[in-house]
């Protein structure tokens, strides 16, 4: 975590102050679909305006600030669509913005000075990117529809079996792989790859990797600590209704 202090957010704080304290929360706002300028609005104002549950918003925001509790039974499954929407938006940020961005920086480094290590780094990143894309697609096309289906069955009191299941353990393995390779890349850049008067672009690359890592880390926490328990709750609810 890269902020200097763990500010614990509350509903009456001005959202602009919250961002000034930890600019990474701009990503949180984007993933929730909230736009600047924020003027003098408080967290509560912004949540009301955008129809977001304030507790959910604060929980996510506090995760960004490094404050992590166990959230068992904190949220009702009525929040599940907001959570999924948030995750879909962050997927878009990964696949359309930050990953292509990092790839283009690596390509720039490569074309400026064609070193054999950088060719390998580019290959490494390409492989990594396609693994990540595969995982994001899996979530978008399999996991999220499954969860939305559960929600609809609860709302419509429909007890037919939803069919396709997914495995939570597989989910967690994917996350570990994604974070592991990102770490490898950072270690290589900081510790081992030789310098060739390319500090500015290496810095750019590192900062982008940190930005990605920061958001990815919160992303997997949201999935593991909030989404998965919600899904378990919904599955239980449907079972009980039978």
């Amino acid at each position: 975590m890269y902020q200097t202090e763990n500010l614990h957010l509350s509903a009456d704080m001005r959202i602009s102050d919250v961002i000034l304290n930890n600019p990474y929360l701009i990503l949180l706002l984007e993933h929730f679909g909230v736009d600047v300028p924020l003027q003098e609005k408080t967290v509560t104002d912004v949540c009301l305006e955008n129809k977001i549950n304030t507790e959910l918003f604060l929980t996510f925001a506090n995760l960004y600030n490094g404050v992590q509790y166990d959230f068992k039974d904190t949220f009702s499954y009525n929040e599940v669509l907001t959570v999924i929407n948030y995750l879909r938006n962050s997927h878009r940020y990964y696949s359309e913005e930050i990953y292509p961005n990092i790839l283009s920086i690596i390509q720039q480094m490569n074309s400026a000075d064609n070193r054999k290590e950088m060719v390998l780094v580019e290959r490494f990143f390409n492989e990594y990117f396609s693994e990540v894309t595969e995982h994001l697609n899996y979530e978008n096309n399999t996991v999220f529809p499954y969860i939305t289906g559960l929600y609809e069955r609860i709302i419509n009191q429909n007890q037919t079996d939803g069919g396709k299941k997914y495995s939570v353990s597989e989910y967690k393995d994917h996350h570990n792989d994604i974070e592991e390779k990102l770490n490898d890349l950072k270690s290589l850049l900081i510790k081992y790859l030789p310098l060739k008067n390319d500090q500015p672009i290496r810095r750019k690359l590192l900062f982008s990797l940190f930005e990605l890592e920061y958001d990815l880390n919160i992303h997997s926490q949201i999935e593991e600590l909030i989404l998965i328990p919600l899904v378990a709750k919904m599955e239980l609810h449907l079972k009980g209704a039978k």
Partner: protein
Amino acid sequence: MKRDIHIIIAEPAAMIFEGLAAIFLKSGLKPLVSKADTLDEIQQLHLKRSGDIVVISPGLIQNNVKSYQTLKNQFENTHWIGVVYAYNDPNLLALFDAVITISDTSEEIVAVISKMLNTLNPKEPDVLSDREIEVLKLLASGLANKEIADKLNISINTVITHRKNISQKTGIKSVSGLTIYAVVKKLVTLENLSE
């Protein structure tokens, strides 16, 4: 950064729970902190996600010593730390692996936890041994664990241990990442790499 450490705090007093949680969250251990109010809840949390440390009020086990011990036996890798802020029967305190007391400083409390987790052990120097370099070279040239084991006449478990140590020392876990490391360190040349 992965959060591998899970601390369950079983303490009914809000002041003490919040205080301990804040100390742990600020400690640099990067733990996941959970709250439990009963032994049953500890067990449920445990089953969901194995916990490393349970920080528990002696009051919770005073009249439940049997269930506490059953729980303790069930999760043998977990450390049980008592939170002492009143007089407690020494026999009761003896049931914990360690205790923290109300007068401890944050540093002392974190030290008790770190000691339990063995994070205070000095790190080994990050220099690869000759054997590790050999394993790394073969790994970079595309061999699988089994092939490396055959080639070096060692067991597959030994290969895995070497790989763990290599990753710990270099900070790189994936084979493709280690391959780049090996090229940078001139342990292998690009021509030796399998495509």
